[in-house]
Structure formats: C-alpha cells, structure tokens
C-alpha cells in the first residue's frame, strides 16, 4: 500500500469506484434498452415483412396473409398533411420569436409553445375531434393531419427560434450594413446560416409525430380499405399496430410487428434523405 493511503483516501476511492460503476451501469441500461427494442423489432418484424405487406390490404381475422398498403399510404398522407400545416406555421412562428417579438409578448408565445409541447397527445386528439370530426360529422385524414400538426408546430417553432438565435449578431449586421432590409437579411443570410439546425429540428418533429397513435384514434380513426379522399376515415400504421396487436389473432400480431418495423424504417429513410439534402453547402464555422 502506498504511504499516502489514509482511511480518508480509501473512502474517497471507494466512493469514486461505486459512483463510476453506477453511472456506467445506468448508461449501459439506457443504451441497451434501445438496442433491445430495435433488436426485438427487427427479429419479430423481419420475419413478418414481405412484399404482400406493402401491396395488399389487410385481411379479415382468421385469414392468413394480406398487408397494410393502405396504412402505409394513409400514414404518409396524414404526416404530409400535418407537415404542410405544421412546418410553415412553426417555422414562421420561430422566425417571429427570434427576430421580431417584443420581450413580453415573446415570453408569452414561448411559454405557450412549451405548454402545447407538453400537452398529452390524447388531449390533442380530443381537441381535434371536437373541432373537426364533431363538426364535419365524420373521421378523416384531414382531422388526423390537423391533430398531428398541433404537435408539430411548437417543436418546429422552438427549434427554429433556437437555431436562429445562434447565428451571430455580426452576421445580421453584415447584411444590414450592405443595405439589406430586415426580411431580406433573414431570408438570405440568417435562415441559410441556421438551415442545418432548423432542418434537424423539423426532421425530429416529423419523426416524432409519425409514431403518434392517440391523436389519430379520435381523428383519422382507421380504415380496412383504401381511403378515396382526404375526407374519410384513413388507415395509419400506428393505429394499425394498436388494433392488430390488441386483437386475439396470431397472424394480426405478426402484422403488427411488421408494421412497427416498417414505420421505423420509413422514419429512418426520411431522416437520412433530409440530412443528405441539408448537408450540402457551407455551414457556420465552429
């Protein structure tokens, strides 16, 4: 033993070791749970995904086979609708927050956006139901898209704001000093400089709403067949997973796993595509 090893040193060392182990184990648990989910999904879903899944409609209970083509298209439609509303509204709110809002009003908007972000998704679903489904007298993709857009707006707004504020003030002044009006400065210098961050927060937002189930239960409902317009009940992957996984049929459970894997795959592919597009061009110096 080294001569400096007093009882106090030993105590410190053992505390150090215990804490190091504890934090390491926790890190391992959080990472391994993610890999467990992924692995389980890949294992169970991989067995069940086949070409039929992408091309066929669901079959009635008892029959084996079929697919979820309508839910894949339905989910894509609903998420696209939500993005069409949520991304521009959220983005422009973020621009307002970062560039124009007076202090007190900005605080109000920011606080409201954070609250909206924390509202349970099922409450959003009920809200969209009472506003749209109840008044139009039927479930629809439009109602589903609206509900999801409500979730997307605060995510996009706060993300946009955060990354716009990170653009150095000197860069704004550089453009303004050349005679650019404020809106030109924002459109041609500030937003392009923050583009990567803004796009990333948008991608994360879209990925997040793609998996939402509760708001769609009240709005898009679901459909065993093809929806022929945006104005009728529409199938979606998360709701399909819910109904199939909770049904007492073996083959439906198989389909639910496949749907989970496909949903994850779609989000993953969209993510990579968007990132590839975003990564082109010059970025801010670190």
């Amino acid at each position, binding site marked *: 033993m080294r001569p400096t090893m007093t009882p106090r040193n030993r105590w410190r060392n053992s505390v150090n070791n215990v804490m190091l182990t504890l934090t390491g184990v926790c890190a391992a648990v959080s990472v391994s749970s993610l890999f467990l989910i992924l692995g389980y999904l890949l294992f169970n879903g991989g067995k069940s995904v086949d070409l039929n899944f992408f091309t066929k409609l669901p079959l009635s209970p008892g029959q084996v086979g079929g697919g979820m083509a309508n839910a894949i298209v339905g989910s894509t439609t609903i998420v696209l609708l939500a993005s069409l509303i949520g991304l521009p509204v959220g983005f422009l709110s973020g621009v307002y927050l970062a560039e124009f809002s007076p202090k007190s009003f900005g605080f109000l908007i920011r606080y409201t956006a954070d609250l909206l972000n924390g509202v349970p998704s099922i409450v959003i679903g009920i809200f969209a139901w009472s506003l749209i489904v109840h008044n139009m007298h039927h479930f629809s993709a439009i109602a589903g898209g609206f509900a999801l857009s409500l979730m997307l707006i605060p995510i996009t707004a706060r993300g946009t704001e955060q990354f716009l504020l990170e653009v*150095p003030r*000197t*860069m*704004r*002044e*550089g*453009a*303004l*000093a*050349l*005679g*650019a*009006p*404020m809106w*030109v400065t924002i459109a*041609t*210098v500030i937003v*392009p*400089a923050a583009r990567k961050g803004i796009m990333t927060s948008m991608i994360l937002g879209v990925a997040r709403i793609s998996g939402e189930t509760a708001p769609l239960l009240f709005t898009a409902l679901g459909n065993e067949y093809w929806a022929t317009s945006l104005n009728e009940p529409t199938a979606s992957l998360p709701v399909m997973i819910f109904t199939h996984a909770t049904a007492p049929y073996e083959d439906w459970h198989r389909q639910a796993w496949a749907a989970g894997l496909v949903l994850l795959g779609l989000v993953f592919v969209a993510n990579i595509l968007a990132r590839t597009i975003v990564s082109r*061009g*010059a*970025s*801010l*110096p670190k």
Partner: protein
Amino acid sequence: MSTSQQISSTRPTSVPPQSTNHAMPESPNPQPNPVKMRAKNVNFFYGSFQALHDISLDFATNKVTAMIGPSGCGKSTFLRNLNRINETLHDTRLEGEITLDDENILDQDVTAVRRRIGMVFQRPNPFPKSIFDNIIYGPKINGMLKGRNAAEIVERSLRRAALWDEAKDKLHESAYALSGGQQQRLCIARALAVDPEVLLLDEPCSALDPIATAKIEDLLIALKETCTIVIVTHNMQQAARVADTTGFFLLGRLIEHDRTEVIFKNPSRKETEDYITGRFG
C-alpha cells in the same frame, strides 16, 4: 513610447492644411476637401444611459478619419450611428443630425443610406456562402446586377481589396476556407462591391496578426482615392499610420479632433496628451 516615434512611422500622406476641428465647423476659410459627412450635436442613448454627449465631427472627402480613445469611450457607438446600424438594437435613441453630402441621413430610407455607407466590423463576418456569393450579395440585393457582369464586379472588388491573387482560384469555395486576414479583406471587398461613398471600419484589425494588419492599412491608404474612410482603432500607431485626421473620444465626448500630426505631437487638450502618452487607457 514617445509621440515623435509614433509619428515617425506615419506614411507621407497629403494632409489638409486646414484643421477640421469640431470647435469651428463653420470655418469661413475655403476647404480644399469638402465635407462628405457631418455629425451635428449627436446624443445617443442606450435605454436611459447616455453613451454619446453632443458630438459634432466633420469627415473630409477622400480622407481617412481615425477615432481613438479608451474602451467604452463611445467611439464604436458613434461609428455605428453613422450608418444607423445601432437602430437595430432594442431601446436606443439618437438625437441630433448626421448628414451625407449635406442631407440628413436620419430622414432618408435606411437601406439606401447603408448602401452608400459601407461598414467593416471588428471580427471578419463573411456569410456562410462562397467567396463569389459573399461579394455579389450586396449588388444582388440592391438590384445592381442588371446589365452588369457579376464576375467583373467580383474581380474588381477583390482587386480593390488586394485579395484577387489569393482568392481567384477558389472563388466558389466557402469563405471560411480563407484565413482571418483574408476574411477581413473579403469583408472589405464585399462592402466595396456596392460602390460605397463612405467606408466605416470598426477596429478592423483587432483580430488580426501584424502582417494582415499591415496589408489592411496599405489597402485603406489606397482606398481613400475613391472612398471617404472612417476608422475606429484601439491602436494609436495605426491611427498615426493611416489617418489624415484623428478624433479623441473620452467618456462619450469628443475631446479633440485635428490633423493626426497635431493630435499626436501637439494636442491642445490635457486629456488627449495623457492618453497619447500612455498615462491611462
């Protein structure tokens, strides 16, 4: 360091025989250089704090005017009012008159004013675009590209900023591929691309090494053929090297403005002398 040593490094520049001391801006003597810009009784407030007190200062055409003084003396604040960029800060107020060619810029459209009065900042601030796009930015947003060749504007601006030889082979690379000194010259080229009549520089060399600094100083002396130049600097030797006239600021007031030689060799105010000789600041 003695003041005479500082002066000895001054390049031979033509200095107006007539003093442009702010105390007598309405001097009846005919000036060889008419006044390009003039600040009259300028007061400036950040909220309730008064940063500038009754500043009157003339900027002679095609001359370099330097503004020196200790940190926080208001020289940068004053400079930033000359192109009204301080207006973009919240809760600021400007009183008085600032004229460009005898017209009050405070009454004019701010974007038109800023087109005529270019600015270079303390730290190089190129846009996250290519070198070419950085330079063409100003002409583009000001609608100056009609019937003109963008490539020619870029080359001319880079040549005027003495950056052409270093940048001509990488015009379409990111501006961040340049060194700090090159980036600052790029920012000067970007400002020159819209043909400003006045060029404001806010401590343009404070982030640069001595070699890059020397290049920019040479550039300023060449540029005053076509531009009226106003430079804020912490570096007294720099003022001595490049400026025709120098103004000394202290605590938000203009203490003295005269030919650079006079300011450094024979200042009329004690505060100026104390600062020049390094007794404070």
